[in-house]
């Protein structure tokens, strides 16, 4: 069976006055039908650029290499028209900031109906009906009334629901959600995550969820892709990543968050140093300068993925049989 989405050897750079920023350097991953895949990483890890490339939001001149196949079809070099069609019918996107992703001068209902009319060739009245249904689907009370309101009359959580409604308007096979709850309060975040889970089950779509919050990952994802310095450093099922991580960066991420269930106060273990400079990324492993276990080869040569188990890979030389055994200290007793 082929994958719903396949990204291979993607490379994206941006020219700036300071030189060329190598935002994404050889990223490969896949997403299957009906799967929730989380991409985790810090700012500058390349996670947002990766999905923007999938969505056709990055100019072709910046994409230096790679393939993106959706449903078996190459989509990286589609014409504007074909891409628009794909976005309108098969891939939906939810952005981080619900305050800026809606048009402030346009009524909510119209913003939802716009896409429906364009892509599904429905009449005005039918599109309106569908838009109201969508508002109900994403849990907005008084949908008929709300249809005629402007974004400023909605709270942050409600706006994000509207953005989700727009993304779902054309029953997409894949929903890309870039930090969908980062701008929201925790109680509202819980509402939106529940909504996304419920809709995913109901509609059977796949979700790529970009986040830096490991709690959100644990709750939502089936598979996890950990990115660092423009590359994928580890991928596996959510249980592989949380219970048997094989990359020191993943260890670091897991250790640097406090455990809510600790009885006594333990000192946090941060990752020292700061993320790599993407103008001149290191020749070897991007994490080597911050890695407490770095060896000579790490600085010399960027590791290729080591297969740990079925579907679990880690780009770290420590997984080479010749490497010294490192006692991976993962946050013990994390329950």
């Amino acid at each position, binding site marked *: 069976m082929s994958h719903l989405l396949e990204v291979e050897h993607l490379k994206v750079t941006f020219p700036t006055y300071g030189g060329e920023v190598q935002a994404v350097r050889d990223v490969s991953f896949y997403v299957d039908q009906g799967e929730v895949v989380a991409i985790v990483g810090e700012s500058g890890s390349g996670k947002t650029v990766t999905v923007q490339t999938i969505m056709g939001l990055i100019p072709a001149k910046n994409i230096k290499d790679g393939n993106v196949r959706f449903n078996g079809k190459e989509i990286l070099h589609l014409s504007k028209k074909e891409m628009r069609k794909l976005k309108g019918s098969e891939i939906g996107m939810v952005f981080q900031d619900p305050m800026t992703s809606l048009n402030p001068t346009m009524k909510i209902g119209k913003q939802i109906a716009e896409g429906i009319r364009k892509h599904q060739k429905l009449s005005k009245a039918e599109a309106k009906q569908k838009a109201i249904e969508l508002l109900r689907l994403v849990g907005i009370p008084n949908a008929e009334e709300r249809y005629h309101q402007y974004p400023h009359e909605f709270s942050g959580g409600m706006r994000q629901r509207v953005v989700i409604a727009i993304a779902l308007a054309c029953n997409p096979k894949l929903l890309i959600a870039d930090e969908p709850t980062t701008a929201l309060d925790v109680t*509202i975040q819980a509402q939106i995550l529940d909504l996304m889970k419920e809709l995913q089950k109901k509609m059977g779509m796949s979700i790529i969820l970009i986040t830096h919050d*490991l709690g959100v990952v644990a709750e939502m994802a089936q598979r996890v892709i950990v990115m660092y310095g423009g590359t994928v450093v580890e991928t596996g099922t959510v249980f592989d990543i*949380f219970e048997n991580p094989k990359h020191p960066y993943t260890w670091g991420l897991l250790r640097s968050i406090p455990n809510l269930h600790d009885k006594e106060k333990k000192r946090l273990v941060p990752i020292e140093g700061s993320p790599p400079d993407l103008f001149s990324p290191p020749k070897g492993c991007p994490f080597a300068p911050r890695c407490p276990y770095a060896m000579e080869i790490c600085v010399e040569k960027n590791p290729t993925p080591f297969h740990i188990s079925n579907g679990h890979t880690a780009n770290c030389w420590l997984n080479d049989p010749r490497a010294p055994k490192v006692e991976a200290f993962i946050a013990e007793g994390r329950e």
Partner: protein
Amino acid sequence: MSEEILQVENVKKYFKIGPNQTVKSVDGISFAIRRGETFGLVGESGSGKSTLGKTIVGLYPATSGKIRFDGHELGNLDRQTQRKLNREMQMIFQDPHASLNPRMRVGDIIAEGIDAHHLAKGKERQELVYHLLERVGLRPEHAERFPHEFSGGQRQRIGIARALAVKPKFIVADEPISALDVSIQAQVVNLLDDLKQEEDLTYLFIAHDLGMVKHISDRIGVMYLGKMMEIAESSDLFEEPLHPYTQALLSAIPIPNPRLARKRERIVLSGDPPSPVHPPSGCRFRTRCPYATDICSKVEPAWKEVKKNHWTACHLYNQ
């Protein structure tokens, strides 16, 4: 010296936003912070936690109520005492990009308080700046640089050095880590922890990330729509939250453990927080509270010590 460094008594802070409209950001809050403790203040956006922090350090004048710091009542002090208190109470801000003047060198940013309070001059001032930079994990040569040359985490360190420069006793840290990456957050939290031990500081730590607040705080206060809902020792609050709002807030935190996250039942609150311009009558939380009854809309629940050192304002505990 009293055990409590800060006493807040029925403090209110209202903002007029129109001819007949007032936002009651902080609406009658009383609590005290003990010398040497870290008091965590949590709440969602619009709960008034930042306003309360800024009112305490005097960035906003309180609309009414009393704030006592180290035995002095804020508001009607002579100039000299006021200056002393300004020095002893410092603040660290949320956004490390907005809180440093982009046109000043880091050394001058850090020394601004030293100059204003005439604490050191010339060589001594320079030595002090170098020392402070090292204290927060930066290098002396960074003093000559400008803020844009630093990452977010480093800028937050500069903000911390600036606060430390005037030898404060009490620091209000307003969301000091929310703008930082996960791996950097832990660095800054550890730094704040170390400084507290070494400099005998007291913190008011404002944040919405409950995991970090629990980690750093001795006691925690939970705010909702301008009111304090619950105050308890940090472990008590997490083990046995009394107020329905606290319960919902805690259950909304995503747990970074996939097995547990899949098992757990969550209390998902319906609706959004009401507007602070027209807060609900009685208990402010009643519109979203799963246990609300008649009395909740009529009578504001009293602030009560339900268990030892565990205070809450909820009718459920008023039998």
